[in-house]
């Protein structure tokens, strides 16, 4: 027995010693991932980039890093105005609006020292359009003459595609038809060039650290999958004087809770989000670190118009009217999300809010109108209304809130189903759903890129809605070079959607994030574009 007691005592003492040791560990051993330096910014990166190849990337998360490494002819304007010069220092349009001539900078170079030439741009865009590249966002190049025909394989001869490089600093783009918003497309991701010599030599491995060659403010230093990506300033960048950071670390963090804990212990300077349960606390206690910015993302309910009773516009409109969006943004989603009564977010593409359809004076008035519509459709007070399913992919309580509103105000029962994201999207695409919650995310700030989805057979026309008037409106607006006529087409298309209700916009998304007061010059736009020049870290708070 005594030996056992001794053994036990020994073990206890050992445990105590270990704990004491852990608590008194010298500082270097418990160092942060990297010592925060004045010239290093550590940003949370929520999704591993699929690839750093601008032709193959499709997610904003990929472009967070690509835009630090490379830049296209122009970049989106952070204040939502006309795009700004980047690799091109100037450009002009022919009077008919069909020919755009870009003049590249004399001092721009690839990070390996090669000059950036107009021929590099032609070859890069050729690569995006080549079917074998399988570029997911190839349609952002379809404004170029014959680009679509070449991309779908109907045209084999690239010389008839509207891209020419008369000399090393001049790029001439000929369009299919006049496109006033063409520059916004030219500022999008797939237009970012690659160094064709590097890509042809290295193949798919060209995006790895050590291989990557770009023309942006930073170069790729390391990529530890699942952990972090580090970029270092590019001394050959034409605007090197405006680059004030030495390195940026994109630190991989899977979820908002881990992200927030890492931020609190000083592991990152900037998060991508704020855990929902902590929104109010940060807004109240740390207003100087808590940030909020609107996103050009519309969350909406798609009504499957193939299925009765949702094939009746009165039913769809009644359901849409009975959703109290004010309550949803005030109590359910919070974080600066705005109630949506239109497809296009307010201020999108620098436009005004006048395009939005009129909204009911109060929720009570809307409910009154909704009940009447429902009764007209043959379901007075919800009697005889079939049991529908309301499906979504996230576990936000939005769907439950809507379920309760429909029950209370219309007397109808729906089931709520949450599915894994890919399953949900696949169901929406194949039409195997009743009412689906989904997001509309634009690639460029062009209202028609959103409205286009809901023309007959449009790419994300989940409601499978078909309306000849709408189709004609969108087609005419898109083909028109006159901005007043385009705005009018957008306004009428929005009204039509509000009346026929193939979908019910719920709210416009917003980003909430935490940022240390030592970070200065952070800029981003509603389409997830970030700007890494004129950005710095210093001890002096903002």
């Amino acid at each position: 027995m005594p030996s056992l007691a001794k053994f036990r005592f020994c073990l206890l003492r050992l445990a105590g010693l270990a704990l004491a040791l852990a608590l008194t560990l010298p500082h270097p051993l418990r160092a942060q991932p990297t010592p925060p330096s004045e010239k290093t910014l550590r940003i949370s990166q929520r999704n591993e980039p699929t690839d750093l190849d601008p032709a193959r990337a499709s997610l904003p998360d990929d472009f967070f890093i690509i835009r630090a490494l490379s830049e296209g002819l122009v970049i989106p304007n952070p204040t939502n105005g006309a795009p700004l010069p980047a690799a091109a220092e100037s450009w002009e349009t022919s009077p008919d609006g069909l020919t755009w001539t870009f003049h590249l900078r004399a001092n721009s170079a690839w990070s390996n020292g090669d000059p950036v030439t107009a021929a590099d741009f032609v070859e890069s865009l050729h690569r995006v359009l080549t079917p074998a590249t399988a570029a997911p966002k190839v349609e952002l190049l379809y404004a170029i003459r014959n680009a679509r025909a070449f991309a779908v394989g109907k045209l084999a001869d690239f010389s008839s595609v509207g891209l020419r490089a008369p000399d090393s600093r001049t790029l001439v783009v000929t369009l299919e038809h006049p496109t006033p918003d063409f520059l916004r497309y030219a500022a999008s991701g797939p237009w970012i060039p690659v160094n064709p010599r590097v890509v042809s030599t290295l193949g798919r491995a060209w995006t790895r650290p050590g291989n990557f060659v770009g023309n942006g403010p930073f170069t790729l230093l390391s990529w530890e999958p699942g952990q972090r990506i580090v970029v270092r300033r590019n001394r050959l960048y034409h605007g090197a004087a405006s680059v004030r950071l030495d390195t940026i670390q994109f630190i991989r963090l899977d979820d908002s809770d881990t992200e927030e804990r890492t931020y609190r212990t000083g592991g990152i300077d900037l998060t991508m989000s704020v855990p929902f349960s902590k929104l109010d606390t940060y807004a109240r206690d740390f207003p100087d670190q808590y940030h909020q910015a609107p996103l050009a993302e519309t969350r909406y309910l798609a009504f499957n118009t193939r299925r009765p009773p949702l094939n009746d516009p009165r039913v769809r409109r009644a359901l849409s009217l009975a959703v109290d969006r004010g309550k949803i943004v005030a109590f359910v989603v919070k974080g600066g999300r705005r109630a949506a009564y239109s497809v296009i977010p307010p201020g999108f593409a620098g436009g005004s809010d006048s395009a939005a359809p009129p909204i009911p004076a109060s929720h009570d008035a809307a409910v009154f109108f909704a009940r009447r519509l429902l009764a007209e459709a043959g379901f007075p007070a919800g009697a005889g209304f079939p049991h529908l399913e309301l499906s979504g992919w996230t576990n936000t309580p939005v769907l439950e809130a809507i379920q309760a509103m429909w029950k209370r105000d219309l007397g109808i029962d729906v089931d709520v189903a949450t599915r894994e994201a890919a399953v949900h999207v696949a169901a929406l695409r194949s039409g195997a759903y009743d009412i689906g919650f989904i997001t509309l995310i634009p690639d460029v700030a062009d209202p028609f890129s959103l409205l286009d989805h809901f023309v007959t057979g449009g790419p994300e026309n989940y409601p499978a809605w078909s309306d000849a008037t709408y189709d004609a409106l969108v087609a005419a607006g898109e083909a028109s070079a006159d901005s007043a006529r385009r705005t009018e087409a957008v306004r009428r298309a929005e009204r039509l959607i509000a009346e026929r209700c193939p979908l019910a916009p719920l709210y416009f998304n917003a980003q909430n994030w935490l940022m240390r007061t030592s970070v200065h010059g952070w800029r981003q736009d509603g389409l997830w574009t970030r700007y890494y020049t004129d950005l710095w870290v210093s001890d002096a708070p903002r």
Partner: protein
Amino acid sequence: MLRFIGLRLLQSIPVMLVIITGTFFMQRFVPGGPFTAERAVTPEVQRNLAAYYHLDDPLWKQYTDYLWDLCPKAFHPSALENGPDLKAAFGIDFRPSFKYPNRTVNEIIADKLPVSIELGAYSLAFALVFGVSLGVFAAVRRNSWIDYICSSAAMTGICVPTFVMGPLLVLAFAIHLHVFNASGWYGPIDRVLPCLTLGSVYAAYIARLTRGGLLEILSQDFIRTARAKGASEARVIFRHALRGGLLPVVSFLGPATAGILTGSFVIETIFQIPGLGREFVNSAFNRDYTLVLGTVILYAALIVIMNLVVDIIQVCLNPKLKFE
């Protein structure tokens, strides 16, 4: 014994084949594909992507092509010194990943498996040392306050899930005491919290199994004989009783190793560890067909091997068993 091992390895071939076939076809029948993103791609892009990845071939051809790529076609075990690259060592090709087109599944596994194994090994070591000690204390002082404390600690460990334990430990040791980092896998210090969290659940199970096993042995005749012959209590416990008392723990180690490896997903997410568990789960969400298959095959092989190892250890520990 060699015959036993050889026989068992032969038996595992049909097992692996069933797992590969099942996984291959099951994931093809799950709704959604690797290119089902929230933002739709045009039909022509869909076609281009399918052609690029040979998804437009008939399914049986995709299956046989894949099986052929899996067949070992080389034998250079020395290549394993540079990391677990199965292609260089055995010619087993898991193909490029769908989600990360510039990396192959072989590279991803070579990159991430060592991290998961490190995490799992430390956790298991902690679970064994801590769990067995706790179990022994509880059994020796049966129905005393020590027993009650050990048993309740074990019960708590079983009941508190890792996704609660992890953030609690971070809150205490990283956010308030500033001893550890909240996330990351950079220095040795970053190993502590994840291994504690992952190991604690298993430590709790092991403690309960040890206590139960030991109590059963302690009531047997040969223990009384040992005591009657004047052996010290420590000798009785550690020399005579523990050997038999640990048998349930050893049989638990097979599934526990599998659980620690595949179940590290939660820990890897909480602490942001670049291990294979995270890739395993995310690949299923991404419909990354090749990565799903690669990780499933690897885990299945690990489990088969671990079960074999456990069987061998059991025969060595338990004189009543023989290799058959």
